[in-house]
């Protein structure tokens, strides 16, 4: 029998991790006499980074939760941003509306790249992890050829792009739209129900008449579109795109999404996994903002180590949660017995 959670449990379960993150990180800053959001720019970057992490996490989880490992997410983000930036520049020469056009083109190109990746997977019928290795190499190769291995600067440095990253409102709007769309698609449509059925029992779902191939293809298209947005947001954040990544140099982008994916999944037990990804992304962005505050003391290497340790510690807890609960209950019953 499934035990229903009370509203209190749901609230505590949903908010415990972000509250702990906020308390620790704001506490650390306060202890050193520093402010995390000293300027409006730091708030803008906080929201922008949260948007990047949330959308990457969603893209990663869509296929990973179905047992399809996709290494090509980073390559898709970079290639879609390079192509959309170049086309937008050719059309508008960096004039007004460049950011919106680049965002829309990024979504379309990302979706096409996702579709191609999906078609290769369903067409070849080889494990998705292997297909994604090939796709990563191909997309990186195309990016390198288009950019001659150079950074793309002129195409993304203009007033329109600066205006987008110069306020937190646009990234926040992107977060809301993506969250609402993904929630609707996966929790309120037939496609979403089929996706969940396939996720939980592939053979049974196929035998009941669910069409697996179209479902998988749509998943790849959505992932591609999401990574198109990530490519655009990353370009506005850093005002450049690195076109020189070869030999799996682009896969680092997806590794930032592992910790928020697990945190989001945990929070999702108490509310909704998509909301969980947003909350987890906010936590990651808080951590990133704290690193920025302590940039003189904490090097980039140290930040990588801290992120990896957090991932390991959280997973140790997650994987041994039942064991820890049993131990705690045993201790409690032993102390009751003593009394």
């Amino acid at each position: 029998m499934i035990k229903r959670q009370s509203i209190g449990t749901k609230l505590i379960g949903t908010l415990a991790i972000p509250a702990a993150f906020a308390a620790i990180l704001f506490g650390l800053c306060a202890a050193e006499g520093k402010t995390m959001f000293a300027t409006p720019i730091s708030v803008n970057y906080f929201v922008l980074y949260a948007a990047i992490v949330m959308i990457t996490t969603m893209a990663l989880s869509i296929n990973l939760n179905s047992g399809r490992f996709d290494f090509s997410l980073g390559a898709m983000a970079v290639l879609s941003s390079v192509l959309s930036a170049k086309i937008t520049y050719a059309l508008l020469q960096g004039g007004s509306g460049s950011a919106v056009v680049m965002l829309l083109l990024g979504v379309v190109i990302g979706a096409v790249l996702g579709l191609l990746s999906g078609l290769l997977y369903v067409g070849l019928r080889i494990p998705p992890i292997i297909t994604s290795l090939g796709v990563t190499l191909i997309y990186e190769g195309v990016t390198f050829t288009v950019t001659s291995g150079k950074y793309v600067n002129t195409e993304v440095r203009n007033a329109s792009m600066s205006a987008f990253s110069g306020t937190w409102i646009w990234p926040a709007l992107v977060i809301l739209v993506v969250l609402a769309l993904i929630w609707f698609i996966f929790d309120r449509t037939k496609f979403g129900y089929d996706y969940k059925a396939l996720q939980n029992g592939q053979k049974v779902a196929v035998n009941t008449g669910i069409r697996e191939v179209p479902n998988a293809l749509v998943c790849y298209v959505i992932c591609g579109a999401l990574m198109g947005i990530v490519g655009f947001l990353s370009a506005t954040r850093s005002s450049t795109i690195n076109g020189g990544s070869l030999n799996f140099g682009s896969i680092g982008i997806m590794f930032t999404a592992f910790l928020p994916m697990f945190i989001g999944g945990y929070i999702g037990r108490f509310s909704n996994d998509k909301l969980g990804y947003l909350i987890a992304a906010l936590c990651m962005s808080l951590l990133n903002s704290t690193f920025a505050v302590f940039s003189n003391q904490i090097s980039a290497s140290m930040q990588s180590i801290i992120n990896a340790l957090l991932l390991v510690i959280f997973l140790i807890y997650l994987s041994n949660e039942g064991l820890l609960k049993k131990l705690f209950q045993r201790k409690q019953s032993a102390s009751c017995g003593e009394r």
Partner: protein
Amino acid sequence: MAQSELVKKHRVRELLVALLPIAALAVLFGALCLVVNIKGYRLDMYLKIVFNEGVVLAIVATGAIFIYSLGSFDISLGASTLFSATIGVMVYNASGSLPLMILTIFGVAIGCSLLSSVLASVFHIPVFVTTVAMMSVLSAVAAQIITTNGGALGGIGIPATVVAPLDNVPFKLIALAAFALLCVFVFDFTKIGRRLKFLGSNAVCAKLSGIKVNVYAIIAFVMAGLGVGLGAFLTLVYTPSVTPTTAGSIGMNILVAIVFGGMPISGGSRSRIYAALVGGFSYILLNNILKIVIDSGAGYGISQIVSAVFFLAVVYVTSMNYRTKLLPR
């Protein structure tokens, strides 16, 4: 009668598919000789380059077969190679002793592997996620050590004269052959290999048969650690300095090499040690051929595209016997 003919046909087809990676290696070798001759370059020089690049990848990938046979995969092996070599350099510079450096490299490599396996088997963390975390930590620590002690660009190193006597083909060939023979022996002629394949084929059934998963996972990681140690040492023999980018692509190239060599990524009974050797050298041969043919800066991108298409084609053909009705996961 008709059924026995069908079985015979199926076996012939299986044999042909199994031989395909070896045939691909032979074709690629021939193609390299051909393009080098057409371009008028020195063949001996290119063969040496391919051998030196391929030997490290083949050794690390051979050790990694033990992990891959379980159906798991480890992308931290490149970072582990960098970290072991970095610590080895530090130890040599502090002690001036080559044997101590070699011992340290192997110790650190096996230690890193053991840490991954303990995290995965004792704390029940998914192996892949453990290796993602290990990759971040090891490459970050190595980068920190290198930049603190020598600068990110120049890196840190040992005097070239220390390892120069070992920088020759016979020594590396002996190292490769010795390690490959050890792996073939453990994998194909002991219960360790059989049980690893059993675990990779059907973990539930293997557990119910009394096989201790944790023990065999640890053994697999130790064997991979040995490969990483030898690979790290040979990396230093070839280039006696390390930078944060040293061995950076090995972790992912292992995956490509193993699949290229005809082994399924799901591991199990079809795991083969030779897959790493064949796949490792094939991949390096292919990359070098493309570098020679597409001889320009932007050509790196095109050669990577061609290499990826070739990779997918080989995998498609070698997995033709194992198509399922459902989409593979």
